[in-house]
């Protein structure tokens, strides 16, 4: 078996983000790590929208990012700490729009290891040194400098190791131009490891240590080390240093130590200041719980600075330090605003705050004010004895604040993120769709969503209006060449033409000079200020003064097709002749003396745009009825001579020559594409060889069932092509690469570009008698998302087999259910406590819910109508019960009536897993599944983590036990059980009487149910222990599954064993077979193995295109959606794996990870080719492309074509 892995949607989680002037321009940019991908974002300061500049797969796991700038420099560099055992300095090159690896220094083994640095990065604020740290012991310091040619240099590493020290955080101190100092938060475990009484552990102190890099002596010394709060977790740099020009200090220097419930200001030989972290005074708050700061950002303005710290609840605090030179007078904290919990916060100088939220969409906020003069209570270290350090072992009295809606920030933009995808289903549910949709359960807590993903570009309709008749074509035109916007809309009907003007209102124009009594074939703004209309009887050249020069078609002949550009007009006559016109320098339209007879009826014509500074374009493409497309010269030397001829599979209905940039063909200048739309709904994309005028590198794509019509439009100021068939497609250039994506919009009969002040890059189209103006807001996104909000974290979902409603189970840990919360409030009330109603009613999707102790759950079952896009019913679970699994079962004992079984458990604890009691709740569907009614509850001894319908009964994985239940009157009846599983059963699949059981820690086992003896027997298992997350059966003997560490693999059972088991009627043979290696008697063999880099949460075997082959579709926790395509021919396998091998050597990872070892992170990669790597072929330099293609005995075009074909036939993307 050979599989080809393709990512359809890359991970959208943002574990880290940094800000800097990476392109060297004045504007700041944000670099976001998506775990295995780096993305450069640029905010538009006018609109406040974020746009992606580039995104690159790094084929490694990014663990830390830092930005630095050399003293006196204007450009920031990014440093990346990863699992490659290397430190990498990246430079963004705006010229080629790519990240360039400036330095790559190896220091250790690859992998995210305990003592190999890469986890923490800290830079000196003056850009002189960087420290890279591991979780334990290892810290390396690199000195950064410039050489004589002003290039960045990096020194050999200096060690700042400390044995047996666990590192919590490191940060660079701001010391101005004195020797760079790094502060580290460390705990030494030597003594705790030796002391059996546990006293040393209890007394273990967390120390704040300063490591000074002595630039003169070139070594690192431990300068200062003092114990601090034992629950400290984060350090924040405090500005310091002195300007050379003045005596003023920028700040006191030192660090803020963020600990549980407290923030402490620390510096060598300086007084400590301690302040409490204000809490929400929530009636349901768990008072035993501490509060920590999880992310922080410092912002320096002219002569001042402040900190924004975010707590784990999402509340932002503004911390300010009052200081006189180097002496801190007071540290103050107050509530600022509440935003989603972030993994990183970035403040931009232009007044934006980027919140890289850890789950869900990422936000960009704009600062409205800085919270300087509001009534928020402020807590200062001066309010407490000895600045809060009177007794540092005792906590300060708790401080409180009142959360409120945003006041200091305003949301400017939101980036859609699928992170985390917890479960997904792939099926075609929506009407009028021929490709399946992906339904995902995303998010965490109250910000969870259920999303419907459709392949295509989102369309925003601005105008939709009915017309008196059914037009067959529409155009827009400017009046003068240098007009910004279009002035006229021209509609052509069967027997006339209507001209509308675009202004405040859209109204009819009478004196436009257009002939209104005949249909129109083409409209063009020609020359400097003239207009041109082609109609069946002739060509009208309307000059600026409204005089009309008309060329009439010869008697008895009509014009059947026309094509125009700014200087040239070509028309085809009904006599199969072509007439050519060109604008002369006086603005006069002259016909070329000869007409060209084509010998076959002309169906379509196209000329390209006139190149900048030229008189004309040299090529004309003509599509004839005899299934040919001819290229004809328009060059003055050989005007109207045929250059080349291309046969096409069916008559061409439309042709469009467009010059578009595609970096995979030509990096610097646009390529001339000849797109040929055929009657059969196929689009042929060919490249016009500029030297010989031949059509080369042709690729075909099926667009829909109607004949294709091609229209040239503009997107992002670049030419694009709209292809109309039964679906509308847009062919456009995005980030220098060509994309071809359908629009999610109704079928269009005709369309044209539309540019007006309010809609500068719009499109206008007609469907039937409706005129619609629309635009495409998000180019580059391939999936349109529609979401429905959920209450709690979704756990699993399924779709009803008949009525196609979705049933989603949601459960949140450490949250009180509604009934428990109400009860607790009641208790507090009766105890005479005042309840703050306002706090209770805070919207949970913005503020989250109050955290409760471990063992509490809030959970519900939700019914969703995905077609209508709404929730139709919610069934909350009470008594601290949480739902973990569900299945729809046709119980044979009830005449195959479909029942919903939900596996729940009460008072569940996660580690170690335990519960008071598990339940199987059986529900009946009412009103076609719109609502459900509880039939009965069956108690179980453990948490039912997986359920499945099996031969008219229910099979359940309840903890370690696999059981079959049948329906009874009062409860489900246990029929048979097998308790040989290792940890807990998490997945179940079945075919026939075979059940595939996925264990939480012990991979997939094959079990069989032998009905005659009522036996449930395990007959085969895996040779490796694996932490299964999801699985699916590929066929009767093959299973594809994924584990918790980001691997996807395929296991197969020997067909002989399979037959043997099936032939044994009673299962006695298996029962008495001897187990191998303390497991089942037979072992499955590994067919394919691949490390995706994201934790795969669901895997499905399905087809992604109508009539296409089955592929494996998987979704990842961080938002990845990918497919594994089986390669069918040996030839394909050889080709693609050789290509992969070559690219591996040419394209080195941006973080310095070896590709082969990345894809074989835990187990060597087997039988899977990395399509993402292969597709990076398009971005390689031309010489390398040619080299690789040469090795493969192919041309570059053929390689690209093969890659595209693999993607398109498997996924349609």
């Amino acid at each position: 078996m050979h599989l080809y892995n393709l990512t359809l949607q890359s991970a959208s989680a943002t574990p880290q983000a940094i800000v800097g002037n990476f392109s060297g321009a004045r504007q700041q940019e944000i670099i976001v790590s998506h775990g295995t991908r780096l993305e450069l974002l640029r905010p538009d300061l006018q609109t406040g929208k974020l746009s992606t500049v580039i995104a690159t797969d790094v084929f490694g796991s990014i663990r830390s990012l830092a930005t630095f700038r050399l003293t006196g420099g204007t450009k920031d560099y990014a440093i990346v700490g990863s699992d490659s055992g290397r430190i990498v300095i990246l430079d963004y090159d705006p010229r080629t729009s790519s990240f360039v690896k400036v330095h790559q220094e190896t220091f250790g083994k690859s992998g995210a290891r305990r003592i190999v640095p890469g986890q923490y990065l800290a830079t000196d604020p003056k850009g002189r040194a960087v420290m890279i740290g591991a979780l334990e012991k290892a810290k390396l310091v690199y000195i950064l400098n410039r050489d004589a040619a002003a290039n960045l240099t990096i020194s050999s590493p200096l060690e700042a190791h400390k044995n047996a020290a666990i590192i919590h955080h490191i940060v660079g101190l701001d010391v101005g131009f004195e020797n760079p100092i790094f502060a580290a938060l460390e705990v030494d475990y030597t003594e705790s490891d030796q002391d059996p009484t546990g006293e040393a552990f209890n007394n273990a102190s967390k120390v704040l240590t300063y490591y000074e890099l002595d630039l003169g002596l070139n070594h690192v010394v431990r300068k200062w080390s003092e114990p601090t709060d034992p629950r400290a977790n984060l350090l924040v740099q405090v500005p310091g240093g002195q300007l050379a020009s003045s005596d003023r200090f920028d700040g006191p220097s030192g660090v803020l130590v963020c600990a549980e419930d407290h923030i402490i200001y620390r510096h060598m030989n300086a007084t400590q200041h301690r302040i409490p972290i204000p809490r929400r005074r929530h009636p349901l708050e768990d008072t035993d719980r501490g509060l920590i700061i999880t992310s922080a950002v410092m912002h320096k303005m002219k002569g001042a600075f402040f900190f924004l710290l975010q707590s784990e609840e999402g509340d932002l605090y503004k911390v300010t330090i009052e200081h006189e030179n180097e002496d801190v007078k007071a540290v103050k904290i107050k509530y600022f605003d509440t935003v989603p919990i972030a993994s990183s916060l970035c403040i931009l100088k232009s007044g934006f705050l980027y919140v890289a939220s850890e789950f869900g969409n990422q936000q960009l906020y704009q600062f409205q004010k800085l919270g300087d003069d509001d009534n928020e209570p402020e807590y200062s270290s001066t309010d407490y004895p000895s600045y809060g350090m009177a007794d540092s072992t005792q906590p300060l009295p708790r401080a409180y604040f009142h959360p409120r809606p945003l006041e200091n920030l305003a949301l400017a933009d939101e980036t859609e993120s699928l992170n985390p995808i917890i479960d997904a289903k792939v099926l075609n549910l929506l009407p009028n769709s021929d490709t399946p949709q992906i339904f995902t359960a995303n998010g965490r807590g109250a910000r969870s969503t259920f999303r419907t993903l459709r392949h295509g570009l989102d369309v925003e309709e601005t105008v939709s209006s009915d017309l008196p008749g059914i037009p067959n074509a529409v155009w827009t035109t400017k009046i003068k060449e240098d007009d910004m916007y279009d002035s006229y809309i021209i509609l052509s009907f069967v027997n006339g033409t209507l001209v509308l003007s675009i202004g405040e209102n859209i109204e009819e124009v009478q004196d436009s000079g257009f002939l209104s009594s005949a249909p129109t074939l083409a409209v063009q703004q020609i020359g400097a200020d003239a207009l041109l209309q082609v109609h069946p009887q002739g060509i009208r050249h309307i000059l600026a003064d409204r005089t009309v020069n008309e060329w009439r078609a010869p008697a008895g002949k009509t014009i059947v097709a026309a094509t125009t550009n700014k200087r040239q007009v070509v028309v085809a006559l009904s006599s199969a002749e072509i007439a050519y016109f060109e604008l002369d320098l006086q603005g006069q339209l002259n016909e070329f003396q000869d007409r060209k007879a084509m010998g076959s009826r002309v169906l379509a014509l196209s000329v390209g745009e006139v190149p900048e500074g030229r008189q004309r374009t040299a090529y004309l493409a003509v599509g004839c009825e005899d299934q040919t497309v001819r290229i004809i010269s328009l060059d003055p030397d050989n005007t109207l001579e045929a250059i080349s001829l291309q046969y096409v599979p069916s008559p061409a209905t439309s042709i469009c020559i467009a010059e578009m940039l595609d970096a995979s063909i030509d990096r610097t200048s646009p390529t001339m594409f000849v797109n040929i739309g055929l009657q059969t709904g196929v689009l042929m994309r060919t490249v016009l060889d500029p030297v010989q005028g031949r059509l080369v590198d042709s690729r075909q794509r099926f667009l829909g069932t109607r004949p294709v019509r091609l229209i040239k439009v503009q997107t992002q100021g670049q030419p694009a092509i709209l292809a109309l068939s039964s679906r509308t497609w847009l062919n456009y250039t995005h980030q220098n690469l060509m994309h071809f994506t359908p629009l999610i919009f109704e079928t269009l009969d005709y369309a044209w570009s539309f540019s007006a002040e309010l809609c500068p890059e719009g499109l206008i189209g007609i469907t039937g008698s409706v005129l619609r103006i629309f635009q495409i807001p998000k180019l580059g996104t391939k999936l349109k998302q529609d979401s429905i909000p959920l209450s709690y974290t979704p756990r699993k979902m399924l779709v009803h087999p008949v009525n196609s409603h979705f049933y989603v189970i949601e459960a949140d840990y450490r949250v009180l259910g509604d009934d428990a919360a109400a009860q607790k409030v009641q208790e507090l009330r009766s105890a005479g406590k005042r309840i703050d109603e306002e706090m209770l009613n805070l919207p949970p999707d913005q503020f989250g819910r109050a955290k409760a102790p471990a063992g509490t759950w809030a959970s519900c079952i939700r019914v969703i109508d995905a077609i209508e896009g709404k929730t139709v019913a919610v069934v909350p679970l009470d008594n601290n019960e949480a739902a973990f699994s569900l299945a729809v079962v046709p119980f044979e004992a009830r005449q195959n009536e479909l029942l919903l079984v939900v596996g729940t458990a009460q008072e569940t604890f996660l580690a170690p897993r335990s519960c008071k009691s598990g339940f199987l709740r059986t529900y009946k569907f009412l009103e076609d599944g719109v609502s459900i009614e509880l039939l009965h509850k069956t108690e179980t001894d453990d948490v039912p983590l997986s359920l499945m319908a099996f031969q008219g009964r229910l099979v359940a994985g309840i903890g370690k036990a696999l059981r079959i239940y049948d329906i009874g009157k009062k409860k489900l009846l246990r029929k048979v059980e097998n308790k040989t599983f290792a940890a807990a059963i998490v997945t179940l699949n079945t075919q026939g009487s075979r059940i595939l059981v996925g264990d939480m820690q012990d991979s997939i086992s094959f079990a069989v149910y032998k009905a005659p003896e009522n036996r449930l027997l395990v007959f085969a298992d895996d040779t490796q222990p694996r932490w299964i997350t999801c699985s699916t059966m590929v066929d009767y003997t093959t299973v594809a599954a994924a584990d918790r560490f980001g691997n996807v693999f395929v296991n197969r059972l020997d067909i002989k064993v399979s037959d043997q088991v099936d032939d044994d009627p009673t299962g006695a043979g298996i029962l008495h077979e001897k187990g191998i290696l303390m497991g089942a008697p037979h072992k499955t063999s590994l067919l394919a193995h691949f490390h995706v880099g994201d934790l795969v949460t669901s895997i499905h075997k399905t087809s992604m295109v109508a009539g296409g082959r089955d592929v494996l579709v998987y979704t990842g926790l961080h938002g990845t959606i990918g497919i594994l395509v089986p390669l069918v021919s040996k030839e394909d396998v050889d080709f693609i794996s050789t290509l992969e091998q070559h690219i591996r050597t040419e394209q080195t990872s941006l973080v310095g990870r070896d590709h082969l070892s990345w894809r074989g992170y835990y187990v060597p990669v087997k039988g899977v080719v990395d399509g993402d790597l292969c597709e990076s072929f398009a971005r390689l330099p031309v010489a390398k492309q040619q080299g690789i293609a040469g090795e493969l005995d192919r041309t570059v075009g053929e390689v690209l074509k093969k890659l595209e074909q693999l993607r398109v036939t498997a996924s349609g993307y």
Partner: protein
Amino acid sequence: MSSELRYTANTQLEHLHARYTGTGHADMSKYDWLTHQHRDTLSSIVGHPTLTSYLAIADGEATGRIKFEMTERMLQPCGPPPAKDED
């Protein structure tokens, strides 16, 4: 580092053990081995963003809290060491 190694002449091995924390040896106690295993696992959880997210979702905590608690637990993941026999 274990005291047994001190008496062996193989100082090079001793050096290697000091350098590569977590490397096992023949006379390692069950407790030492387990503690190393747990520390490695915990650091792997903190080091892999997907695992941190996974745990955070399961545990209903912020990823920052998970990272903090995992790092804290590295100090003594398996409880205090067993008391040494005095003989």
